[in-house]
């Protein structure tokens, strides 16, 4: 078989497979396969490769697609999955500022560059179990802003708030978030209010079992804190406020 014949055979085979061949072209291909039986095997291999091509080429094109916006509503669900599967790591300050939800802009006011984390340590003792509750607030707008104080007051309503600590680096929050007080069996809860992400993350251990949940602050902080309290009460039987 010479090169020209090979090319002609391939082109005819392609047209027949793609149903673009004329009757004359189809007859020419059939005649070629009768004369040279190995052409029939090659035609079948081309059919199989074509079948695969028709499936993988659209898939490849889809794989490389760059069109379409990630829907914001899916973020919370997916980030919860990340925390549950890979462990909790906060976003960096730079990133959280970049992605701050629009609903927080009215609270944040003029953007600043200082990140401050305020931590409240609230030990809660009940007759049955001693549960340690730690509350942290990530405030990327700095401690001079008025809203910061208002929100701190709301958090302090959780009662028994002790020392307030400030951090300027997000990795300190990460270290805090991953450091649990006491023995692994110590009942404890961490509540992290991330202002810029507009969410409260709760993680804890109760009777040796871990639990965690993320709450979006959609309406206001107090409302969301009540949801947080209900969640913790469901998990542990403990509330967060003085009776």
């Amino acid at each position, binding site marked *: 078989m010479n090169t020209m014949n090979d090319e002609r055979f391939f082109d005819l085979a392609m047209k027949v497979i793609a149903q673009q061949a004329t009757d004359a072209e189809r007859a020419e291909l059939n005649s070629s396969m009768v004369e040279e039986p190995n052409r029939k095997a090659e035609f079948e291999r081309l059919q199989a490769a074509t*079948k695969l091509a028709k499936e993988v080429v659209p*898939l490849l094109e889809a794989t490389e697609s760059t069109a379409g916006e990630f*829907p914001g509503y899916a973020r919370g669900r997916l980030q919860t999955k990340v925390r549950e599967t890979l462990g909790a790591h906060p976003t960096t300050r730079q990133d959280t500022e970049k992605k701050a939800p629009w609903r927080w802009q009215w609270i944040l006011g003029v953007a600043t560059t200082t990140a401050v984390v305020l931590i409240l340590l609230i030990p809660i003792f009940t007759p049955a179990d001693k549960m340690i509750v730690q509350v942290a607030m990530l405030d990327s707008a700095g401690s001079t802003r008025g809203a910061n104080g208002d929100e701190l007051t709301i958090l302090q309503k959780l009662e028994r708030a002790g020392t307030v600590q400030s951090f300027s680096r997000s990795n300190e929050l990460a270290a805090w978030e991953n450091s649990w007080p006491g023995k692994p069996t110590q009942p404890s809860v961490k509540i992290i209010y991330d202002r810029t992400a507009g969410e409260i993350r709760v993680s804890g251990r109760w009777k040796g079992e871990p639990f965690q949940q993320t709450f979006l602050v959609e309406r206001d902080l107090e409302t969301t804190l009540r949801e947080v309290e209900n969640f913790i009460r469901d998990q542990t039987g403990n509330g967060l406020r003085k009776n």
Partner: protein
Amino acid sequence: MNPPSLRALQTGDAAAWDEAFHWLWPTVFAVAQLKLQPFLPADIEDVAIESLEELVEKVRELKSVEELKPLAASIAHNRAVSRLRERYAAKRGAGQTESLDALQDNAENPFDPASGDSTLADLGQMDLARLLGELQSNIKPEQRAIVADFFLHGLSYEQIAAKHGVAVGTVGVYLKRGLDAIRRAGERHPKLLKELEAFLR
């Protein structure tokens, strides 16, 4: 948009995952759409989100960031096919599945890629991801474009030549190279090779 750091993703860095979700969304959405648009268009977004969730579970198995998109696409593909099969099985009664090829019988375009039953559907997730990664590297974009124009868009040699500004004779050469690359990649995957051999019998 640049790919995120794989190491950051594997350690659960929330910011890196935010970037990854934005970067990978077009892929998982487009793949889910490819399979589901004709039958279950309302399920596309749901399958895309579930695919990203599953990717989170599998990210620690990856060795390079280049594997992310093929794996995301593979997960989305297999999830979409499962969704189709489940939905049509449910319609026909528990435990029964319906050939989705049958649903294509009346399709005008004989090359409609939306069939749920496919050569690729039974490939394992990692196998399909590897196949896609290999094809991304081995088929040049112009070869892929010409294969797509001929088999998927139904253009003739002459129309393709005019569209891409090449000689008519070159169209055949590109088609042959593209098909050869796809065939070689298929032959490297035993399951796929088996499928292709079964097709020839």
